[in-house]
């Protein structure tokens, strides 16, 4: 029952954050960030297991490992960008959060371009000339 632990942690951290916010808003923000980090660290073990299974399936299907690698990198960038954007938006800096999201999108696009070019080349080869 991991979900009960996480929800309890979230509620306790929210109450503590509200208590501290009266005197020091900065500590409240740091507490929220820290709770996010703890929950993320808790979840990343599970994600790791899922990825191991995916890798096994890809090995059995003889998928080129480069594609799986790229997809994993894209997922990682998405998680990090999402985390940073949420923390920044919590602190009231919506503009910086939007820039972080933009950076995440562009970096993902850069990573995806080799796959895209491979797809285009394959389609061009398939076409009768």
């Amino acid at each position, binding site marked *: 029952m991991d979900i009960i632990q996480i929800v309890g942690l979230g509620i306790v951290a929210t109450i503590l954050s509200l208590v501290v916010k009266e005197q020091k808003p900065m500590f409240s923000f740091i507490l929220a960030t820290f709770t996010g980090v703890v929950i993320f660290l808790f979840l*990343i073990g599970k994600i790791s297991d899922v990825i191991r299974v995916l890798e096994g399936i890809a090995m059995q299907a003889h998928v080129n490992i480069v594609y799986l690698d790229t997809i994993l990198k894209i997922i990682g960038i998405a998680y990090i960008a999402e985390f940073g954007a949420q923390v920044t938006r919590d602190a009231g800096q919506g503009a910086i959060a939007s820039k972080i999201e933009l950076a995440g999108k562009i970096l993902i696009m850069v990573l995806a371009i080799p796959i895209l070019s491979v797809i285009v080349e394959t389609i061009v080869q398939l076409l009768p000339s």
Partner: protein
Amino acid sequence: MAYDVNAIFQIAGIGIIIAMIHTVLKQSGKDDWAQWVTLIGFIVVLFMVASFINDLFQEIKRVFLFQ
């Protein structure tokens, strides 16, 4: 997990205690000392959070980027 939860309580406790010390020092007229105490508290907590964020990013790197 247990260690991390302790850290959350530590941060909240540091915040409350710093607020208390700040109030007491301000009441007794030592305004600049109150500011220093607040600043040091921020630095300590920021250090804790930064080290944990470093842990998180290393873990994400290990899981997603370098396998």
